[in-house]
């Protein structure tokens, strides 16, 4: 028996506009319920929706970055939807003429292989509001989110493991953030995933396909990965018990994800496409995009993480790992770029950001730009290290201080007596003293061979100790070499 997992992913991304897709109501997270609503998003009779230009341009920008064909002509459609969180009783979406289609995104798997995931389409639509019913005998409806612009990205069924689904989702989050089209903040529900999952099973020369299950509304990478892994297990078990558990016999179905029990639960047979009763939206006119407009949107695409990572290794000589960490999210990449622009030597800035900055950020569960240090301070700190004024341990100490001290790192270094001693005269006296009192080590060093390096390290350490860690080790090393090399 051979089984193969087949997954296609639908991803909803909330666009970072100030206002809704078809009306001027503010988009804000956590505002009082039903405070950002108007007759348009409340679905009052007689109102007219008007497209948000920024939302359209963000969607095109994202489509371009997903290597999609951008449709020169698109229109809007109504999709039947009978739930109170969208009181028009339809959702404005795009059916047969989506604004972009046929793209791809490359993902890097854990074993460093690159896999291309084809994108079927990416289109714009409006979000629904929120139904709340926990512990109530009725449902409460909050329509603040109703009409929020969403980009729906649909992949081809090219994903073949739960892990690949998670990697793709994280790659998309990073891409959307770098593009500036979405905050892609998971806590605020800016990204939601709906995997379509089934298995192709071959046994005794016969091929079986299990029913396609769509798991609705997963809102974290973890839930996505777990839900796909659970479905892979569940569908195989069901099929083992009953070889008639196939797509032909059971069709498609919707399932929900129970985060506490970590299992999917049956919701309903999936309504076939025609049951959504799509038809053209008469209240909105089509969109036509010409070369000039498309070129302008193209020009607004910033440097994307793949290209940026390459630049960091080639231009700054960073290693692959550091370059990957620095381009891991937009906030970190922006911080690094700005610190380098502010005059920080790239390699030193990279060390400070990856070793101290991101460590602090992780501890505080914040982004790099939220921990209290400015890009200028990091640039200045990097210069101090580069110029040999402070050593690595002093840099760590100063970094801790500037987390809540806005002053120049050099001022702090002087105040805390952390400036390295680079004055050859003073250091020479210490080196002489150490040479005079460690005859054995001097002999080992001069004999050469295995022991030589160790002896040199010992002598250097003695001088460092004498200087209470303030001697510039590079200069001390040079002095030792000069004095003892015959």
């Amino acid at each position, binding site marked *: 028996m051979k089984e193969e997992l087949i997954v296609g992913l639908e991803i909803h991304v909330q666009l970072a506009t100030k*206002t809704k897709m078809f009306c001027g109501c503010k988009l804000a997270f956590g505002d*009082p319920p*039903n405070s950002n609503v*108007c007759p348009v998003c409340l679905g009052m009779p007689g109102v007219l929706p008007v497209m948000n230009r920024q939302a359209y341009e963000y969607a095109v920008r994202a489509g371009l970055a997903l290597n999609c064909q951008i449709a020169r002509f698109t229109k809007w459609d109504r999709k*039947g939807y009978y*739930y109170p969180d969208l009181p028009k009783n339809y959702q404005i979406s795009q059916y047969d003429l989506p604004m972009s289609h046929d793209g791809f995104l490359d993902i890097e798997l854990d074993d460093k292989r690159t896999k291309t995931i084809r994108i079927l389409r990416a289109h714009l639509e409006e979000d629904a509001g929120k139904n709340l019913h926990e512990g109530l005998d009725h449902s409460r409806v909050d329509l603040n989110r109703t009409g929020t612009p969403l980009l729906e990205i649909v992949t081809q069924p090219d994903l073949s493991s739960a892990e690949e689904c998670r990697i793709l989702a994280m790659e998309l989050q990073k891409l959307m953030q770098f593009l500036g089209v979405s905050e892609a903040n998971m806590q605020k529900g800016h990204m939601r995933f709906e995997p379509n999952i089934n298995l192709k099973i071959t046994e005794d020369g016969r091929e079986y396909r299990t029913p396609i299950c769509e798991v609705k509304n997963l809102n974290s990478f973890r839930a996505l990965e777990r839900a796909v892994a659970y479905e892979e297990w569940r569908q195989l078990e069901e099929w083992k018990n009953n070889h008639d558990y196939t797509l032909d016999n059971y069709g498609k179905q919707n399932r929900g994800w129970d985060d506490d029990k970590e299992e999917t639960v049956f919701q309903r047979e999936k309504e076939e496409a025609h*049951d959504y009763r799509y038809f053209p939206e008469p209240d909105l006119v089509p969109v036509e995009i010409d070369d000039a407009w498309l070129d302008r949107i193209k020009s607004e695409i910033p440097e994307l993480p793949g290209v940026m990572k390459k630049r960091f290794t080639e231009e700054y000589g960073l290693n692959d790992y550091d370059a990957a960490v620095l381009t891991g999210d937009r906030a970190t990449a922006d911080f690094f770029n700005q610190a380098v622009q502010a005059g920080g030597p790239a390699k030193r800035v990279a060390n400070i950001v990856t070793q101290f900055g991101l460590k602090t950020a992780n501890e505080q569960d914040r982004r790099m730009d939220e921990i209290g240090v400015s890009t200028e301070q990091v640039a200045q700190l990097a210069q101090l290290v580069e110029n040999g004024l402070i050593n690595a341990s002093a840099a760590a100490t100063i970094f801790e201080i500037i987390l809540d001290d806005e002053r120049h790192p050099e001022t702090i270094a002087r105040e805390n007596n952390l400036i390295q001693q680079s004055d050859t005269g003073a250091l020479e006296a210490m080196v002489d003293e150490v040479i005079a009192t460690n005859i054995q080590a001097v002999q080992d060093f001069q004999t050469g061979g295995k022991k030589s390096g160790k002896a040199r390290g010992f002598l250097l350490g003695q001088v460092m100790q004498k200087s209470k860690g303030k001697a510039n080790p590079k200069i001390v090393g040079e002095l030792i070499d000069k004095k003892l090399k015959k």
Partner: protein
Amino acid sequence: MSAKLTEDQVRHVARLARLNCTDEEIALFTSQLRAILDYVAQLEELDTTDVEPLAHCLPVHNVFRADEVRESLSNDQALANAPQRDGEYFAVPKVLGDTSA
């Protein structure tokens, strides 16, 4: 329309729209909808072989607004017409959390 609309089709559409209809209503709506569909079916007499489908009846495109915040309704205004409210929320009969938008 070559095939006549059936009562089952009407029941199906009613269910999708979350409408409860009695058998009498289904019979009535079926005959009424048939009449409408027969009327519209007259269009099929036209030869549309070389006619491009029309996405919109107006020769207009690209009507946009700038992404600028406009004042929303107050919570009380928003809820003024609601048959039932629960504090700042609309209150409706309990629905399963489907939100498949």
